[in-house]
């Protein structure tokens, strides 16, 4: 499963969105789709666990979770950095 597919399935499971995640484009605004700040934390926890990464403080903001694309970019970058470390 690619990173973006894994993230899609985590968003579907933990994002508590009122819409079907399959209908969302990768760059669709998740907050406009109904992602609450509360659910975004559950999402972060599930992503940290799945990819075995930790979001650094400067990534814990709205922008990181604004779309599936944005999450994928951050996760890809962190996976590289944190595996290299």
């Amino acid at each position, binding site marked *: 499963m690619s990173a973006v597919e894994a993230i899609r399935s985590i968003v579907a499971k933990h994002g508590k969105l009122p819409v079907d995640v399959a209908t969302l484009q990768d760059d669709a605004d998740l907050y406009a789709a109904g992602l609450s700040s509360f659910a975004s*934390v559950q999402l972060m926890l599930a992503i940290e666990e799945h990819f075995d990464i930790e979001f650094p403080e400067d990534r*814990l903001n709205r922008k990181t979770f604004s779309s599936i694309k944005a999450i994928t970019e951050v996760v890809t970058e962190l996976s590289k950095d944190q595996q290299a470390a």
Partner: protein
Amino acid sequence: MMNIHAHAPNLELTARARRVAAVAASHADHVDRDGRFPAEAVEAMRAERLMGVQIPTDFGGEGASTAEIAELCSILGQACSSSAMVFAMHQIKVSSLVTHGGDDPWHQGFMARVAGEQLLLGSATTEGGIGGNMRNSICAIEVDGDTCRLEKNATVISYGDQADAILITSRSHADAAASDQVLTVFLKDQYTLEKTHVWDALGMRGTCSDGYVFKGEAPAVQILPRPFAEIAAQSMLAHAHILWSAVWYGIAADAFGRAQAFVRAAARKSPDTAPPGALRVAEASSLLQGVKASIVAALEMYEAARENEDKLSSMSFSVAMNNLKIASSQTVLTIINHCMLICGILAYKNGTPFSLGRHLRDAHSAQLMISNDRILGNTSNMLLIHKQDTSLLG
């Protein structure tokens, strides 16, 4: 990092606030007893041109900083909590206009009107059925060509009858998710209010936080151009928690002043014996300093973050602002209770120079205006992932 000059009081501005405070203090007991709007104090705010001080000079205001506004809230809070809270709520709405409406011609013009005509802004973020979470709306704004229409069961609109305009949240369109919200300005002649609840409360009685059914129709350009989620995170959260805390600090500071005067009077009568309340005054002094320090630290943090959207929407910032609200709302009650123990029956009775019943009742609102339990719930959720900065100065 700590720059005391950034917060040096603007003496001209504080002198104006002190004149308003004198008016507010002289009516505070009547406002409280009758649960009526502090009309004299708000008139005095207008006479001293305080409604528009936060608005940039380009639009006819004075460009006052958040620290300066907080100082005004604290001065007013020492005189009449209701007047101070009305002023704080108005300034929180102004902060959203200043932060998010500055590039938009209609909102620029509206800011100029607020400053020029000294308009009082009300807020309608509460709605029946959302369970107290203002980040959700049930009602949706309907945009029809150049016009927008909104009907909302607004269970609380503080000073709804007296406001000259109301900033109101709703879903951004009929199919939008509950959290996909916008904030819209409606002028007094663009809406009707049908009263559903009358505010008869333990304290903050002069805020007249009645419930209404709001029905409005206005040009669609009056919808703020940014999503409400951004407005809430980037201007409302910090301004609400800082300015409310400044009001509560003012209430506690006035209670402390009364308790200290009580003990000093006793000490002057018998200079050789320490009066019984003296230790508690020292204890209350330490607590009061803690509240003051928390507010000043939050102001520093906000000033450092305000030009940076990422910082403002970061968890560390939200946690810090939430922590300010929790700490100040709890501590002011402890302080006022100490002061009541110091002054005894003269604090418990109304109508003495040491009366503290009004202070205690007003300060009890602090834990409830946005319930501390809700805020602790949000903070605890964020702390599952956010690692608190444990450095002293960082």
